[in-house]
């Protein structure tokens, strides 16, 4: 004769229910490599608060590739160095010049038809760090 005794009641095992749905299919291999798109400001503008845009006008400056209507990026806070392209205040208007610091301070014209200026006091709007134009407008 076999005596049957009730089995000890096992304690309930709580299994967590994952309510998250699984995406069917393969995960995108690129998902872990999300990066922000490139931003032109990052490349051209280091000091936002000191940067202004200025439009070039007048006889084009072929050797530099700067044309009438180009947009120049001007940084006010940039230390102007020998040979920099700068926006200078000359007789009450802005002009684009190349800066010479030594042997003496001079603003070199972009066009041989104009004279070199030896300013008593150098008044700069800033240094031209970049300029750009549409290639189609040049065709």
């Amino acid at each position, binding site marked *: 004769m076999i005596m049957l005794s009730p089995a000890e009641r096992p304690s309930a095992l709580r299994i967590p229910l994952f309510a998250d749905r699984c995406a069917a299919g393969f995960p995108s291999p690129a998902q872990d490599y999300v990066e922000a798109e490139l931003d032109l400001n990052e490349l051209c503008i280091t*000091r*936002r*608060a*000191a940067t*202004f*845009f*200025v*439009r*070039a*006008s*007048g*006889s*084009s*400056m072929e050797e530099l590739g*700067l044309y*009438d209507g180009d*947009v*120049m990026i001007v940084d*006010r*806070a940039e230390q102007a160095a020998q040979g920099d392209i700068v*926006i200078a*205040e000359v007789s*009450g*208007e*802005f*002009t*684009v010049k190349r800066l010479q610091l030594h042997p003496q301070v001079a603003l070199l*014209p*972009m*066009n041989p038809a*104009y004279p070199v200026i030896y300013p008593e006091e150098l*008044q700069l*709007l800033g240094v031209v760090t970049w300029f750009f134009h549409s290639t189609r407008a040049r065709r």
Partner: protein
Amino acid sequence: MFGLADVNTFYASCEALFRPDLRGKPVVVLSNNDGCVIARSQAAKALGIKMGVPWFQIKTQDFPAKVHVFSSNYALYHSLSQRVMSALEEMTPKVEQYSIDEMFLNLTGIDGCEDFEHFGRRLRAHVLATTGLTIGVGSGPSKTLAKSAQWASKEWPQFKGVLALTSDNPKRTEALLMRQPVEEIWGVGRRIGKKLNLLGITNALELARTHPAFIRKNFSVVLERTVRELNGESCIPLEEMPPTKQQIVCSRSFGSRITTKLAMQQALCQYATRAAEKLRGERQYCRHISVFVRTSPHTAGETFYSNTAGEKLTLPTQDTRDIIGVAMRALDRIWLDGHRYMKAGIMLGDFTPYGVSQLNLFDEDRPRKNSAKLMKVLDGINQSGLGSVWFAGQGIDTEWKMKRDMLSPAWTTRWSDIPVARVI
């Protein structure tokens, strides 16, 4: 230790920044609708042009030099103000923008490496190099003293725009406070100044030496706080996070008088749209909307009429369509034919950060579907500068638009307006 940086003759300097031909020349800026003078360059002050003078009065006057006049160009001032603020933030850790051209700075600990005036001069050079605008810097152990220092630095040219009142030099602080008229103190003003004068308190030092309890009894706790601050006890902390606005008002005087209801509806539509944009910018919902209209109280032979009407909403909203709707209903109640209206405006109040409140079973106005999405798109388009979308109710050709006959270009905020440099 607090600092206060402010831009010298801010509006006039902004106007001259991209106009090299205006360096050192008399420049004045006019209020909305080209009404009266609200800013003057140093040279304009020297000609004796006073603050608040109506434009039509100086138009006919003969001055020894040409006066260059500009309508107020707030797009330009705001853009340059932002640049000044960023430049200041680059050198000081904690700042609080106080107005379009003033900023409080926390200078605690600066004196560990250099004295306050030396730092002020460096700050001044940095802002000038960055923006082309000149600031003055006053500093002191309380905001009120920093303000007084800034006032003194303007009054006496020998300080070259930088002055620090420090607790280790009380003699100098007293000498300067003795020269500051009481109405020039931050937070006092002309009305309270007159009352103080009657009590024989005429300068800042005399006010500083008045018993705080006496001031509280006869004036207010606010003025008592000023007395404590003048004695170097800081009672007004730096607010790095500006408090949320409690109301938004959009109102203007019209360029020419409005006589038709349609024109008034268009104007109010415009203000409602602007106010709603501001409200969404604050990330708030409003529960109260009111409009007002008024005629000129000074025109001979016309009866003065001014009235206001508003509604309390059951559902908080930030949707331009709701705000325009209420504004139009309110106008219907107060509009009277036959008047020549000079000014109108809209006020949004009773704000809440949440758009949903308990709905009533019988309420007719349910929240609009997708309202937030639509408004986001609208703001996105209008703030992108690529174009604008507006409500038909605002009209297209608006006769009542602001007079801005002498507006300068938006040098820094519109591609078509950027300065030009000649390549020669």
